[in-house]
């Protein structure tokens, strides 16, 4: 082989190696960061908490698990984080099985629990440094300082946990979860029982975390929270994952409202002049209910009221009602079972 061709061969080999490396990186980037397959869980009491859950969380997204209390949200994330034994099925965290490769899997994960469970007499600095080392990282005061400053906890670093307010304790739990630089952060009901200001602060914080490259899975039973934060939403009810959808899609589905008009006199049926509107009679003809989607451009309440006026229908009061989460879950469940 002459010198020229051997140089060309070497170059080709090098290019191939680069290409392989790039495609490997790309496949890692595209690989779901959490992958749950056929996961079921029955507690010793016989309670069937999770039923055949399949879920993939994408790298870098904010994923909200939405569901009423007792739906299985906490069980699901507790299994992924290693606090509850999995029943059947497998869970991979960044490609690592949470049972057989629990060290690698858990190293990637930070968990902020729902309850404010902290020690009492430890200082903020000590408890956050403890978490970092517990997760196998060498002490790094510089990083802990950054985390505490980001969470506005720096001036409290020497305070004992027992002296902190609920909101601050919540932030300490977040600092503990972030102390070992996880790639995936689980937030279990981060804003349950938190006042409005703090909730907004929390949302900002979560967005900032996502911007830094952390994948975030949060559970909530507030629709507005999912709406505010999430890229995608999973709805869980009675242990079943009813749907996983893009937020925009879901909001469209969940965004229905009802306008309830209390009539001065009862109606026997809806006059044909009003057939163009989606109306129903309720309360023995004493109420007229208009169901609409506020985001839909075809919705025209002015036209409806005008038509009512023309038809001589008078009303003494009106109210609007957003479908409650409970109702939405029930209807979603009904739809998926159909």
């Amino acid at each position, binding site marked *: 082989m002459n010198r020229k061709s051997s140089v060309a061969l070497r170059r080709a080999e090098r290019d191939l190696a680069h290409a392989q490396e790039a495609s490997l990186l790309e496949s890692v980037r595209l690989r779901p960061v959490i992958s749950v397959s056929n996961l079921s869980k029955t*507690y010793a009491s016989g309670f069937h908490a999770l039923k055949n859950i399949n879920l993939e969380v994408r790298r870098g997204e904010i994923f909200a698990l939405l569901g009423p209390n007792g739906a299985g949200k906490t069980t699901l994330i507790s299994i992924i984080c290693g606090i509850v034994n999995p029943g059947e099925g497998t869970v991979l965290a960044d490609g690592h099985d949470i049972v057989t490769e629990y*060290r690698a899997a*858990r190293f990637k994960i930070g968990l902020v629990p729902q309850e404010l*469970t902290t020690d009492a007499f430890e200082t903020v600095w000590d408890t956050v440094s403890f978490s970092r080392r*517990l997760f*196998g990282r060498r002490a790094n005061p510089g990083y802990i300082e950054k985390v505490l400053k980001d969470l506005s906890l720096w001036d409290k670093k020497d305070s004992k946990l027992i002296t902190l307010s609920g909101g601050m304790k919540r932030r300490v739990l977040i600092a503990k979860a972030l102390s070992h630089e996880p790639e995936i952060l689980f937030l279990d009901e981060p804003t349950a029982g938190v006042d409005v200001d703090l909730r907004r602060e929390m949302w900002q914080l979560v967005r900032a975390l996502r911007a830094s490259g952390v994948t975030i899975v949060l559970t909530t039973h507030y629709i507005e929270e999912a709406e505010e934060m999430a890229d995608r939403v999973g709805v869980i009810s009675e242990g079943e994952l009813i749907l996983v959808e893009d937020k925009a899609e879901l909001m469209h589905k969940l965004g229905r409202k009802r306008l309830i008009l209390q009539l001065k006199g009862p109606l026997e049926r809806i006059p044909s002049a009003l057939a163009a509107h989606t109306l129903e009679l309720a309360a023995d003809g004493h109420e007229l209910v208009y169901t609409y989607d506020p985001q839909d451009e075809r919705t025209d309440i002015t036209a409806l009221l005008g038509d009512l006026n023309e038809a001589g229908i008078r009303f003494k009061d009106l109210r609007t009602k957003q479908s409650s989460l409970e109702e939405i879950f029930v209807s979603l469940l009904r739809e998926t079972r159909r």
Partner: protein
Amino acid sequence: MNLHAVQAIYRFEMARMARTLLQSIVSPVISTSLYFVVFGAAIGSRITEIGGVSYGAFIVPGLTMLMLLTQSVSNASFGIYFPRFSRTIYEILSAPVSYFEVVLGYVGAAATKSIILGLIILATASLFVPLEIAHPVWMLVFLLLTAVTFSLLGFIIGIWADNFEKLQLVPLLIITPLAFLGGSFYSVDMLPPFWQTVTLFNPVVYLISGFRWSFYDIADVSVGASLAMITVFLGLCLALVGWIFKTGYRLKA
């Protein structure tokens, strides 16, 4: 092996002892001194010596053992019970640590505490009575084995207990009586023959006897039997801890 984690748990537990220094160190020392005053001085004036050893000196190993057993159990049981009670245990369960590492951290700290305590008690005792140690290495071996074994037992109790009463139950109702009846304050051969036989079923007899042998070269039972007994007990505790973690008993649903 996640040594950072073992170290973190160990230091956390040792810091807890430092915070409760008065309770952890001072109170056992005071109660041991009281035993010396009551048993050593009052009874010692009636029983002058046992097996060629003055009564005051004779009770030192038994008293040390009594404190070592109760303190190992209560330190270790509280150490693991409290995170369960306050539910901060979630962090340990979600961390990349093996069960062995968790036990090493908690039990290691509890055993260290009780060994420090044992040495302090011996130092306190030396103020009251002349102390001689015939087999210092064996003395340390017995001290270490007993501290580790009973810290493991304490760890098991801390996992089993689901309220504070249960936590106190075993040290109070089992460990202390066994230690009192295990020859802390007397030699087994001072008992009537029937009770001598009954006493042989008390595992603590073997610990105290072996420990006393390391001081004065006198023993109620053979040193081999003492060592065998504590090894068996250690093995039992290890097996039980292994089972707890394997099944997640009272830790994981």
